[in-house]
Structure formats: C-alpha cells, structure tokens
C-alpha cells in the first residue's frame, strides 16, 4: 500500500514537471525568444518576416541597446544556407564609420542565426516622415557626404548594397551621424538575381533594374542615393511626387523617355519600350526638387542619369563641387 502511494505521487510530480516545461517552451516559441545565451534581454519585436525577425534588445553586460536580427535556417538538406553564410561573411569584412557595425554572431538551437548590431536612434525614413525632413541645407549635405562615403567604401570592395532606401539609412541623432544598414531578412537576398516586388521599395530602384536587366553593377546604388537625396530635399519620395501609373513611367516623365541616343542599348534592353510608354518630354528635376542649390541640383542630375554608364560614381561624387565646403570640422560641429 505504501509503495503504491509513493509511486503514484512520484508519477504525478513527473507529469507536472513535464507539463510546466511544455508551457515554458510554448511561451518562448510563441513570443519573445530566449536570448540569454546571447547575453541579451529582448525588449520588443521590431520587424517580422517569413525568414526571421528583428528585435530590440538590451546587452546584459554593457547596458547598451542593440538590434538582433534572427534568421531562420531553412532548407537544411544542404546544410547552412549559402545566403546566410555570404551575408554574414560580408558584414564581417565591412569596417567603416558610416556602416552599422555587426557586433557578434550567435546561434540558437542550431536553427537560428542571431546577428547582433549596434543600435541607432532613428532611420532616415522615420526622420523624414516624423520630423518634417532635414530642412537645414547643411544637414542634407552632411548626410549625403556620409552616405556616399559608405557607398564608395563598399564599391571599392566590389560590394553592392542593392537595397538603399531611407529605412536602411540609420541616424545617430545627437551626433548627426549616418550609418548604412540592411535589415532585410534572409529570404530577400536569395541566390536568384530577381527582386521580390514589395510595396514601396521599388521607389529607389534603378531604371536598368526596372527594365529587367540582369546586367547591373555599382551604378544601381548611385541611383538609389540620388532618390534619397531628392527625398531629403522635398520631404517625400521623388517618384511619388509625379503623377504616374508605375515607377518607370514616373522616371520617364521626369527625365524624358529614353532613346538610343540618350541611353545606348535601351532598344535591345526594352524592344517594346514605345508600345508601353509614350514619348515624354522631360519635366526636369528642377520642377520637383526646388530649394536645392545649383551645384546640388547638378550632382543630383548626375546620379539620376538614365544611362548607367554615364551615371556618376560614388568616388567621383565625393569630389563634386557641391561638397567643396564640407570638411571634417563642419561634420564634427553638426
């Protein structure tokens, strides 16, 4: 009798323990991940996607805010996915004051790769929308110089960003410091070169990509930077300011529908160009981008050049007359 009673109690205790464990597991799985292995405390979910999530975290040791990007490893029949290896490996080699720093890489359960980045107060999208955009001309110039410095550095390493847009431009507000980031999730840079169509992101895409060209290079980033430049000045996406049915039509209305003369190779790239798009005369950048000094407008026109081979490089842009009064002293004073 006594033995039977003991067995029953022991069995019940075991079942209770297992049940409690299950509840803990389900809670972790459903909401915030257990980041104690990373010495982080999760504060909130910043972004969600099919291939992973982005969290705002507190570093337990330093007390600093950090951003953790957690990527789910999928298709494990071939081991660790190549895009993850390539992205992390790339980020590890980027050391520049204007590029967000990858602090460390960790693993959770051999199913998630956790990338821990330094955290910055705002992104440029947030800055433009909520703070009425940087109206101060010197701030625009400073931001542009920093963005181009980071892009020139990447291009010197034969690295393309490929997804430059205001939300990928982080700002340390107190220092007026810019850092480029890329919080796209793993699935968004699959090995195929085609972009997934997403609302809003195509506003910064170069015309040669919108024309479905598979041949592209560093120039695509300069187009994106040009779009960001215009947006800082006018306070909204440039293409959005133009009445158009799609981004390419907006670009053609702005700059004129390309011909073989203005963009050599366009008829081969887009044989049906004139079937889909009327022959627009250029409205001109100056029509929409007002309040920008002449040298700034000149630089912008060299970035937003339809022909990729004639578009200015980041390195050359840094030497443009627009930046002649930018120096380290003025950058520090901001």
């Amino acid at each position: 009798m006594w033995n039977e009673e003991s067995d029953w109690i022991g069995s019940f205790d075991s079942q209770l323990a297992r049940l409690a464990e299950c509840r803990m597991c389900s809670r972790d799985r459903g909401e915030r991940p257990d980041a104690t292995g990373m010495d982080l405390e999760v504060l909130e979910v910043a972004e969600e996607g099919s291939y992973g999530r982005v969290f705002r975290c507190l570093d337990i040791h330093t007390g600093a805010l950090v951003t953790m990007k957690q990527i789910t490893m999928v298709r494990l029949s071939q081991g660790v996915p190549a895009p993850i290896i390539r992205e992390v490996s790339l980020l590890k080699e980027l050391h520049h004051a204007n590029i967000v720093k990858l602090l460390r890489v960790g693993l959770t359960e051999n199913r998630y790769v956790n990338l821990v980045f330094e955290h910055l107060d705002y992104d440029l999208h947030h800055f433009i929308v909520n703070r009425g955009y940087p109206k101060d001309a010197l701030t625009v110039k400073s931001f542009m110089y920093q963005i181009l410095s980071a892009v020139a550095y990447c291009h010197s390493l034969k690295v393309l960003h490929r997804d430059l847009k205001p939300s990928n431009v982080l700002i340390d507000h107190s220092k007026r410091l810019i850092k480029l980031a890329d919080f796209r999730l793993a699935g968004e840079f699959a090995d195929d070169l085609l972009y997934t169509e997403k609302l809003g992101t195509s506003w910064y895409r170069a015309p040669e990509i919108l024309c479905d060209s598979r041949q592209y290079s560093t120039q695509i980033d300069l187009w994106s930077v040009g779009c960001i430049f215009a947006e800082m000045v006018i306070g909204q996406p440039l293409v959005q300011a133009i009445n158009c049915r799609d981004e390419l039509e907006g670009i053609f209305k702005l700059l004129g529908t390309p011909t073989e003369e203005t963009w050599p190779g366009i008829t081969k790239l887009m044989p049906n160009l004139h079937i889909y798009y009327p022959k627009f005369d250029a409205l001109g950048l100056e029509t929409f981008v007002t309040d920008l000094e002449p040298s700034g407008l000149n630089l912008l026109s060299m970035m937003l050049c339809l022909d990729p081979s004639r578009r200015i490089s980041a390195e050359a842009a840094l030497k443009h007359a627009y930046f002649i009064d930018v120096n380290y002293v003025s950058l520090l004073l901001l």
Partner: protein
Amino acid sequence: MEFDLEDPLVSLEEEQTFTISELFASESEHVPSPNCLTSTHFRVFCCEAISLILQVQVSCKLDPFVAYLAINYLHRFMSSQEIPQGKPWFLRLVVISCLSLASKMKNTTLSFLVIQKEGCYFKAQSIQRMELLILGALKWRMRSITPFSFLHFFISLAEIKDQSLKQALKSRASEIIFNAQNDIKLLEYKPSTVAATALIFASHELFPQQYSILRASITASEYLDGETLSKCFDLMQDMMRMEAKELMIDTSFLSTETPVSMLERNTKRQRI
C-alpha cells in the same frame, strides 16, 4: 550584397590606397595560427585532408578556387582545434563541410550526395552541425584573403601595358599558387608573400626580359619584407625542383622499355 572573392580590389587607377593597406593589414587574420605549424598531428591530419579535397576536386570537376578556399578553411579551423584521436570519421566530415562552405561562398551548387559518393555517408544534419562549428571557429569570416587577392596589385606595380602579357602572367602565377597548396610549409608565409613569389617565378618563366623589372618593382613594395620574401622564394624553388624531378623520373621510365623499367613502372602503378 554581393562581392568578388577573387579580386576584392577595384581598379587601382582610382588609387584607393586605404583599401590596399587594409587588405595587407587584415591578411594575417585569414591564415592559421602560428603555433600549430610545429605540431606533427596538425601536419599529418592536414596532408591527409588536403589529399581528400584534391581527390574530390578531380572527381567532381570543381572550380580550383573552391578547393583552394576549402583548404584555407581547413587550415584555419584545425589550427584552432585539438585534433581528436580515434575518430576516423572526423577527418572526412571536416573535409565535406569545408568543401560545402567553400562552394557556398563561391555561389556554386554542390550536392552533398555528389561529394560523398565514395566512402561513408553523413546526414545533412551532421554536416550542418559541422558547418556551424567551423563557421564559429572562423568567426564567420569566410571571405578568406588568399594570394589571389594580391596578384592584381603586384602586377600593377610593374606598369606592364600589354594586357595579354598581364593575363598570361596572372594565369601562370595562379597555377603556381594552386600547385603550391600541397606543401604545408608555405603556411608560414603570408598570402601576399606567396603571391609576390609566384609572380616572380611566373615572370622568369614566361618573360625573362621583363623579369628584372618586375622583380625590382615587387621587392620595392613597402608591404613586403625582403628577407621573408627571399626565404619563401627558396622554398618555392625547392618545391618546383621536386616537381620537375618527378616529371623527369616519369619520362626516363618511358624512354627505356627494358624489363627492369617495366617492372618498376608496374610497381609504381600498384603504389598509386
């Protein structure tokens, strides 16, 4: 983001000196730690593993850069680990994982089934775990800086204007570097030193007239140490002599069809 593994430098016409100096500064972080080079276990393990990698390269017709990168990962990983005893499967698993990681960095598809068709078979899960172990040990720095990263820079120092000559020089130097990976002694030298040495040899072979100019411009580089370069040169010279000697031996067998020669050739074939 995407990047070029072979040539991380953009055109040097733009004189991006910060990039060149950064490349030289960080190359030491992509070589095995010095302490392991004196270990017999390390040498034996790596020689066997390299042999296996080169077998797979031949049988699967891999890009030579994939094999080269895999060997770099192998050296870096094993120099940071204790080599486990009594686990014969470990070597094979490391080899498969290094090849897999290298092929992923080069963005070529390489099925686990293909590279494992000979010998024991590992589950994808086991390979994934080993891949993660290697990635962690190498701190996810898989874009290794190899001698190939420096060839363009050194060639540009000589101010050669003939493009086909430049290309021939680069091709031959690359071939020398590929062949040199068998010898573990070269691990004592930085990738830039190996690259410079290979170019000097290539120029001497292909363009004796240009040799003195190229050698002078390379040795004058602020990034190279003359004494170290000289030692590396001697080592590579010995390696190339051994290679030539082996070729001569093969040739001498063919030139004489005596019964003794046939017997020796048969023995050699059995050994292979």
